């Protein structure tokens, strides 16, 4: 319900004397503090006042009210556009450069509309059965004729300026207003094409869904080489920093949602890493995007930088960074060609940058401590003794101590996370109903829930639950004042390395492979992770990291196996001994 529209009504509420009015769907004023609905209704004088210029651009001409109950005529793709717009805004607020919204995402979206034949083309799908009035010669002016100019379009409706661009003209014209089909469709959806959209199954066309919006966001982030990984993005979604669940509730008042729109815009699940990852590739391939800007060593997504970030995050010594860099070099995982996403390559695949970086750290931990529930503890004993004797020196890294501190911190974090999830409120202030008949019931039920919540909120523990967390790419903080939590960043690895000539060797000369055989069949996973088969330390480390990334443990295990595959393939093919000696012990 839009508050702006009710601003001119200044009387006091008869029930609570507040002056805070909103408009109900029927156009009546209601008090936002006590929900008292007045008999006064707003006269619809100015239909041109629409709070968002972007929607205005697409909507002009469509915005013809048949009556105040039904709201505007709008298409599903407009809804998604609105959500993408909001998501881009949210990303901008998180510190992402404004080009992402204005250029990259906007262009991806336009390209999508064109490829899926919804706009910017000769025969948009909406025109089925209607007569389109598209000026053919206008189309040839489109920027979309030539590929290299993909990101050169400056006249974008995403720009705040509200400048009317050439492409907007196409859009408008290619959405013919046909009231003929209204009578049948409006029964089951608020949008014009909701029913048709939910039934549409066209081969080769990627249909827009809620998860797909995040795929678009991630693609733009990747294109811009922004310092937000996929797992960060999804975590921000879960923490409500990026609109996703109930994103539709911020639609303009007149964009009514119900019926089939529920299934399209309503979500009752958080996005899943694997799913969005696959959708990203799917969308990129569908859009036929060229090779993405290169991921070089100075990019955030480069494993060397990400490894540093995750080492800090999990409180491991900075000295480990040189080892991760070494592994990155040996495996070739830092190569530009390996890292850069190229959707038109034969096998379009992108690197799971965050998962890979974490997997590299796991491999390094295995190299140093073996993680067989034995060696890491005896090395810890040595470190402990050494640290007791030499209190002034830089302390040796003590795995046991690290484990104890991490375990506690991790358990706490996880507990909080689970509790926060259990308390998550899924339902929007704007209930989604199935049809107009159900509308009063849905609203009444909403009111009921709100009333009950109001009653119980007085019974809740008075200590506030820290409110909304401010977004951060870090989830742990080790450099704070807290003396209970030792910071291991400055600890040395001297206890687990030994000098040999010019180079350093790991004291531990053994290694075990996380996976011995890779699955060659056509299933999606390369290996399986059966927890009980692995050492407790390994399990702990996988659990810790997969929690940080909010992914399944098996996914990380797979990635560890893939890193190992790269690392030891080289070792086997080259007979010459390297500076580091590693033996492979099979388990």
């Amino acid at each position, binding site marked *: 319900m839009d508050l702006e529209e009710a601003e001119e009504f200044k009387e006091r509420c008869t029930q609570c004397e507040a002056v805070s009015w909103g408009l109900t769907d029927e156009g009546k004023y209601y008090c936002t503090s006590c929900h008292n609905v007045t008999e006064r209704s707003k006269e619809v004088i100015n239909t041109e006042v629409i709070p968002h210029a972007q929607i205005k651009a697409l909507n002009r001409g469509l915005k013809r009210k048949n009556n105040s109950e039904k709201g505007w005529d709008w298409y599903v793709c407009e809804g998604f556009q609105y959500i993408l717009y909001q998501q881009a805004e949210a990303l901008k607020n998180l510190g992402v450069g404004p080009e992402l919204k204005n250029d990259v995402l906007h262009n991806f979206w336009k390209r999508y509309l064109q490829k899926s034949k919804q706009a910017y083309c000769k025969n948009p799908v909406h025109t089925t059965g209607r007569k389109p009035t598209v000026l053919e010669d206008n189309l040839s002016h489109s920027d979309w004729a030539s590929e290299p100019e993909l990101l050169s379009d400056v006249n974008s409706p995403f720009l705040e300026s509200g400048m009317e661009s050439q492409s907007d003209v196409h859009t408008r014209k290619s959405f013919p207003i046909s009231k003929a089909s209204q009578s049948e469709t409006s029964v089951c959806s608020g949008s014009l094409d909701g029913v048709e959209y939910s039934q549409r199954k066209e081969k080769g066309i990627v249909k827009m869904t809620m998860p797909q919006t995040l795929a678009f966001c991630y693609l733009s982030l990747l294109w811009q080489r922004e310092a937000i990984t996929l797992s960060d993005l999804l975590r921000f979604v879960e923490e409500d920093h990026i609109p996703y669940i109930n994103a539709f509730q911020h639609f303009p008042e007149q964009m009514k949602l119900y019926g089939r729109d529920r299934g399209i815009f309503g979500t009752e699940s958080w996005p899943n890493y694997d799913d969005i990852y696959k959708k990203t590739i799917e969308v990129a391939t569908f859009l036929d995007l060229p090779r993405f800007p290169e991921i070089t060593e100075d990019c955030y997504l480069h494993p060397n930088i990400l490894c540093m970030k995750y080492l800090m995050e999990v409180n491991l010594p900075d000295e480990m960074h040189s080892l991760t860099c070494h592994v990155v070099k040996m495996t070739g995982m830092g190569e530009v060609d390996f890292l850069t996403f190229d959707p038109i390559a034969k096998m379009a695949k992108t690197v799971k940058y965050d998962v890979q970086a974490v997997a590299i750290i796991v491999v390094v931990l295995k190299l140093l401590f073996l993680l067989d529930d034995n060696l890491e503890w005896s090395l810890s004993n040595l470190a402990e003794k050494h640290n007791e004797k030499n209190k002034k020196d830089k302390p040796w890294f003590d795995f046991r101590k690290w484990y104890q501190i991490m375990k506690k911190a991790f358990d706490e974090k996880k507990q909080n996370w689970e509790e926060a999830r259990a308390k998550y409120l899924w*339902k929007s202030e704007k209930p989604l109903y199935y049809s107009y008949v159900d509308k009063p*019931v849905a609203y009444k*039920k*909403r009111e009921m*829930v709100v009333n009950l919540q109001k009653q*119980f909120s007085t*019974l*809740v523990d008075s200590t506030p639950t820290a409110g909304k967390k401010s977004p951060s790419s870090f989830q742990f903080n080790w450099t704070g004042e807290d003396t209970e939590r030792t910071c291991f960043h400055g600890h040395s690895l001297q206890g687990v390395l030994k000098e040999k000539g010019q180079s350093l060797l790991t004291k531990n000369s053994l290694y075990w492979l996380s996976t011995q055989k890779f699955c060659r069949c056509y299933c999606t996973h390369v290996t399986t992770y059966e927890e009980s088969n692995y050492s407790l330390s390994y399990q702990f480390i996988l659990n810790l990291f997969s929690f940080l990334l909010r992914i399944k443990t098996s996914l990380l295990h797979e990635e560890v196996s893939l890193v190992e595959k790269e690392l030891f393939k080289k070792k086997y093919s080259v007979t010459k001994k390297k500076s580091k000696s590693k033996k492979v012990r099979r388990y």
Partner: protein
Amino acid sequence: MSDFSEELKGPVTDDEQVETSVLSGAGMHFPWLQAYVETVAIGGKRKKDFAQTTSACLSFIQEALLKHQWQQAAGYMYSYFQTLEDSDSYKRQAAPEIIWKLGSEILFYHPKSNVETFNTFADRMKNIGIMNYLKISLQHALYLLHHGMLEDAKRNLSEAETWRHGEKTSSREILINVIQAYKGLLQYYTWSKKKTELSKLDKDDYAYSAVAQDVFNHSWKTSVNISALIKIPGVWDPFVKSYVEMLEFYGDRDGAQEVLTNYAYDEKFPSNPNAHIYLYNFLKRQKAPRSKLISVLKILYQIVPSHKLMLEFHTLLRKSEKEEHHKLGLEVLFGVLDFAGCTKNITAWKYLAKYLKKILMGNHLVWVQEEWNSRKSWWPSFHFSYFWAKSDWKEDTALACEKAFVAGLLLGKGCRYFRYILKQDHQILGKKIKRMKRSVKKYSIVNPRL
């Protein structure tokens, strides 16, 4: 507050809902198959996060309740209300009842809660869906009773009683009966108070007739309210008891007996020992013939052989003329002492000691053996161990003597319990013990005289 009846009338048209019902021929229904088909229908897709988090939320609430953390529970409850809007219509319909149960529990104990809060909550919950109106009303009334608010409770029950909505179902009809009966019970309570008032008044007191009139009125209303319920099979002890008390007070003995007999003997009613106890006590008050009393207690004996009335039953049987009753009298005594809770019942032991002697003197050795055969493997260690001899003697010498006598009769004079007691030199009991020794020698069932 308006209610949500229109929602139930409307068609259940949820696009997310998978409607599958697995019915095979002849109306057979396999619940497991249903569950299996449902998972197939969603293509092995994982549960929605909404379902996952709300079920996690539920277990957090339950955990908090278990630990008496009312504030935490209220915090989770805040989120759990959203299940009322669950898109899964099955879960949505189940939600009000769960929320009512958890919420009322929280409000019952929460330090910041009060009667007013509870009333608001109850009134809200009554009107979410019509399915729970009566149940919540009843529980609401019980809550008010608990807080001593009799009048409010009564008003609540009256409201619920007159509430009519939608179709009448049999389960709802029973609920209405229960509600009426509770109302009756409250009226009984007032009546009972008035009655004691009346008993304190002099008949010539000017207030007497007014109070008496009052008492009469109440009784009439109550009987109407309660009598409907107690005709329905079920356990209605407090209702039956108060109803009968009122009937008796007004001299309607036949009516009272009919109610009690029906309550005890109607096969549709669940087996209920109290029903027989009430009937027995009533008959006893009415000085009913012994045979009638015996027949009532015989049934109680079958249900609760350890009941304290069994000793009375034994006395009745002993006094009877029939030989089969005499035999049953022995059975009853043995039966009582089979129970761990009765091992220190001195009366039971005294009766058994006396009765055993009498039976054995009457040459009914077979009866005793019949009872003893099934017990000789465990009674010696259960009752007659050396340990018991010592502790019984220390605690209650009289009990020890009775037990020793029984032990001697059943196990012979070599029995450890018997020997231990014999050895104790007690001045007062000395004579008794000597007599006992003689009797054992003469009558013990392991007597080598055979």
